[in-house]
């Protein structure tokens, strides 16, 4: 298929575009009205204003894949298309005729809903910068292993390459960390007993207390109560003496019966005697999608009952729940003797959310820029979070398959809440999180393509597209993402999870509605304060050295008596 087949009308003249922009002087939202022509290319909708002597030409570029939903409003007098973007920007376009309106609408519907990965933007953007293999290989399991177990010989864990051809578990990475005395045959058996073949693997090892987090998918107990000796053995072997194992099942206990009747299930007390099962409810990704839509709706139509609408969106409930559960896990791991196996249904969504948040609380490394990128690679990309499915639509759109759900957006919001509560302890800043959000839905970089490592390999992502980390690590860009106040904090951080302690992510969810200039000014001022402080420190250091030199000289020539100093 060619893009051109989808474009009936590459250009329409006499088009009006309306968008809400901020009038900084009045600190008010005003509707900007532009006249010009609309152009459709294979990847962009480009609006160009008519040349006018008074005003410079303006261009608006909208990537097709950034369009979340299209609403056509054609009456006798008006031929209007409303374009809602995945980043919450909204445009209204008035066409001169119903025919153009319909035609553009039809083309955009197809172009913005292309599911073929190969036709996505990153494959056409190799020129943005050179493909750098190092950035594609920034993360490796060996790196994690080395961090968890600096001394390999005394470790009870090993790296298994059983999934090297993605056969055992298509959504797992090639290499995983498992207990040392479990052989690959047992892993195969266990994978057959777990949904999508996702057998228990090591997610995080807390060196300070030798406690750990494992994650997996649900066991396939089924209504005839199947069991798997090898699966039981993995959990038994993993748990050292003196530790208490907890299975954190992120589903409500009331739903387990249904799970069993559908062939799934849970770890029974009889077969896993060392492990205590705890059911903690988290909204599933599809429920979370509804929550997200309500949240954005409250933000856009905020005139009445704003706080009530925020509350009923349940977005804050989900943030609190996620932070609360990771808090409990971190507390057990760091202060008590708990070790964890986390899963929900398939272990693709909430499991990853909770395990990565717990790591951010526990592990200072994950609060650095590099460590955070590692965490995203390990706990989301390599762990098989289905990025392509979950972020095909944002808050305005849906698909009939209902596979969309903003679990990673919730993760970013939780991390931002932590950044706000611990403004010194994170090396990266809010802008970094917003940049990740933007690249999640539509990107020139290949990092978030596909649903797992397997798919990314088949698409040859690493040789055909540029990694997002290449962009991040660029000297000019990285500056924008660094928190100037960062100081290494080796402690575990304990966030507050009261609703009062949380805030709405206005720089993201209200990004097209608020005036960001005053807060940008404040950010610049903070950088200035830090720089001034640094310069004075350097100056003092130099003066002190000078003074010492002088004293030494004076003593050497006998002007000063050394005993006085």
């Amino acid at each position: 298929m060619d893009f051109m087949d989808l474009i009936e009308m590459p250009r329409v003249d006499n088009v009006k575009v309306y968008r809400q922009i901020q009038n900084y002087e009045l600190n008010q939202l005003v509707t900007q009205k532009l006249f010009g022509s609309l152009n459709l290319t294979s990847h962009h909708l480009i609006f160009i204003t008519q040349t006018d002597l008074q005003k410079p030409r303006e261009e608006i570029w909208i990537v097709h894949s950034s369009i979340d939903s299209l609403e056509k409003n054609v009456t006798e007098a008006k031929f209007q298309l409303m374009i809602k973007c995945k980043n919450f920007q909204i445009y209204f376009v008035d066409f001169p005729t119903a025919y153009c309106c319909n035609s553009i609408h039809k083309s955009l519907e197809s172009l913005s809903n292309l599911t073929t990965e190969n036709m996505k933007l990153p494959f056409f953007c190799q020129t943005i910068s050179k493909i750098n293999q190092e950035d594609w290989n920034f993360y490796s399991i060996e790196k994690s292993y080395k961090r968890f177990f600096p001394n390999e010989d005394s470790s009870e864990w090993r790296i298994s390459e059983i999934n090297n051809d993605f056969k055992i578990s298509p959504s797992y990475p090639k290499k995983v960390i498992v207990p040392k005395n479990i052989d690959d045959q047992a892993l195969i058996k266990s994978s057959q007993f777990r949904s999508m073949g996702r057998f228990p693997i090591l997610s995080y090892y807390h060196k300070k207390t030798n406690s750990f987090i494992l994650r997996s998918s649900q066991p396939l107990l089924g209504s005839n109560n199947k069991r798997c000796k090898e699966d039981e053995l993995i959990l038994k072997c993993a748990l050292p003496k003196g530790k208490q194992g907890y299975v954190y099942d992120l589903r409500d206990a009331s739903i387990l019966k249904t799970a069993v009747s559908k062939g799934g299930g849970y770890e029974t007390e009889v077969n896993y005697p060392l492990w205590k099962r705890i059911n903690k409810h988290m909204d599933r990704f599809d429920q979370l999608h509804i929550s997200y839509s309500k949240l954005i709706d409250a933000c856009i139509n905020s005139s009445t009952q704003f706080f009530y609408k925020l509350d009923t969106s349940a977005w804050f409930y989900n943030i609190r729940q996620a932070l609360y559960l990771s808090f409990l896990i971190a507390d057990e791991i760091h202060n008590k003797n708990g070790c964890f196996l986390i899963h929900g249904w398939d272990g693709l969504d909430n499991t990853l959310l909770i395990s990565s948040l717990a790591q951010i609380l526990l592990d200072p490394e994950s609060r650095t820029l590099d460590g955070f990128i590692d965490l995203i690679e390990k706990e989301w990309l390599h762990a098989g979070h289905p990025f392509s499915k979950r972020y095909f639509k944002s808050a305005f759109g849906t698909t009939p398959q209902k596979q969309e759900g903003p679990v990673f957006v919730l993760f970013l919001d939780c991390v931002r809440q932590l950044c706000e509560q611990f403004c010194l302890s994170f090396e990266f800043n809010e802008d970094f999180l917003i940049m990740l959000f933007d690249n999640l839905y539509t990107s020139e970089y290949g990092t978030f393509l596909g649903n797992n490592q397997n798919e990314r390999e088949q698409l040859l992502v690493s040789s055909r597209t540029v990694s997002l980390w290449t962009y991040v690590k660029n000297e000019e860009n990285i500056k924008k993402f660094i928190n100037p106040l960062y100081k290494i904090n080796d402690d575990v951080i304990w966030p507050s999870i009261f609703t009062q302690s949380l805030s709405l992510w206005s720089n993201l969810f209200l990004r097209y509605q608020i005036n960001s200039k005053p807060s940008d000014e404040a950010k610049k001022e903070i950088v200035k304060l830090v720089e001034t402080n640094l310069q004075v420190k350097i100056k003092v250091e130099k003066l002190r050295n000078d003074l010492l030199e002088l004293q030494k000289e004076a003593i050497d020539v006998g002007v000063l008596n050394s005993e006085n100093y």
Partner: protein
Amino acid sequence: MKLDLEESNVITKIENVQLEDRSNSKIKTAGLLYLTISHLVFIETNSKREIWIYYSLINSIEKLPLSINGSPILIRTKHFLNCLFIISKERDCQTLVQVLNQYSRPTKYHELLCFRENSHLKKLLDSTHKNNQQIYHLESEYARMGLPNNKWTMTNLNSDYQICDTYPNVLFVPASVEDKILQSSANFRSRGRLPVLSYLHPNGASLTRCSQPLSGFNGRCDEDEQLLQHILMTNENSKFMYVVDTRPKINAMANKAQGKGYENETNYKNIQFHFIGIENIHVMRNSLDKLVKCADSSSNSSFLTELEKTEWLKHIKAIIDTSVFLVEAINDQNTSVLVHCSDGWDRTAQTCALASLLLDPYYRSIHGFQVLIEKEWLLFGHKFSHRCGHLFENDKEISPIFSQFLECVWQLQLQFPCAFEFNETYLIKLHEHVYSCQFGTFIGNCQKERNDLKINELTYSLWDYFQSKIYDFINPLYIPNSVYSNSVLRPDTRIFSFKFWRSLYNRFDSTINHSEKLIDSLSMLSYNTSSLQEYSKLLEKVN
């Protein structure tokens, strides 16, 4: 303020007391309660941690149903500390309630803390001097605005508070107006609070304030109408002026039946009359009560819904909306505005002060902000003692009007982090000391009353105390010459711009507040920079 228990006069001691954690009722700490003549003191047995509560700050004492551990008693303070003590002996509990009731609400001004000997403040402030309270002269503030000039003049008509006892003794009025007119206008206004100048903008448009006219259903006063014409004439840039009644229309209508009311547009030439709709003191008091409970509820799964129900932020929004209306009239339309509510000392004070703060960057400096409070609140007779309940008087008079003003300023600080010289801590401390009665500054209901009480001679000034701690209050992000700090502020007043003020309403809940406070670390950084700069100067000299 750290005090020593041995130096304080302990009346009685209560043993076997447990303090229950507000966020987790399972956590209780054991300790002792001391009742001194000025404080309730709780000392934890294990950690020796101390909680000192000024009696004057106690807002409510509530006995809860008996539990197996003893009698629970919930004490809420005016600065939002909530303590639930469980006292094992019922008799002790009765003693506690009795002492607190006796000491927390004195009936006479001279029983208030600020009139007592205070060795701590003496040490701190006597080195400066005691009554620096005259930081503010009305004349000098109006001189800053370029007054008197050919349009506006100062009148001594109220030098003995004879025409209005709740106004200051000097007033600024149009130069063209005769005393006779002022006198008659005062007679036609509730409590004699005639229209006088609050703030003059450089473009000539003025902000004037007054109380409601005693018009009833069709009363009118020729001189009052003339006074408005004189005010209108001081501004050459506009052919009309606004009269803003900050009350909801229905409240103003109800006042008509009592012989009060609002200006009839047909009687006053060239005025545009507006109702705005800020609710009255009773609504505000109830709203705060709900807010405090909402912030305190330990299992607040529906906090946001509860917050919505309190309507608190809706009221805050209404005050800022009104102030923005005043700013747009004065600055953008070059049109003067006369503001009033009922008596012109609550909603009028809020909106005139906020509008001035938005219009003039001077009021966003530490000194300017004090001047603003002195002028719009203290001198123009906001009834601090009544509204704060300093004495045991009518509870129906209590209302968080000034607190709302402070919160509005805080909301503006959030939107414009670089526009204010003072920080959030300043507002929180100010809020505390408006109620604490340690300083004379906010005691009494008007200038006349403070003069009669000899506040300046007998008490310490809060402003002096603040001056001695000024480094705690400076906003390290303040940029005096930035776009936002140097011009008219235009806040966004859509509802999502308003936030719940956690650091005030949950001030003492460490589990709710953030662990690493941005403002604190920035202040530390600035402090570090300035001391290093000092040091480097010293080193340069030595070298």
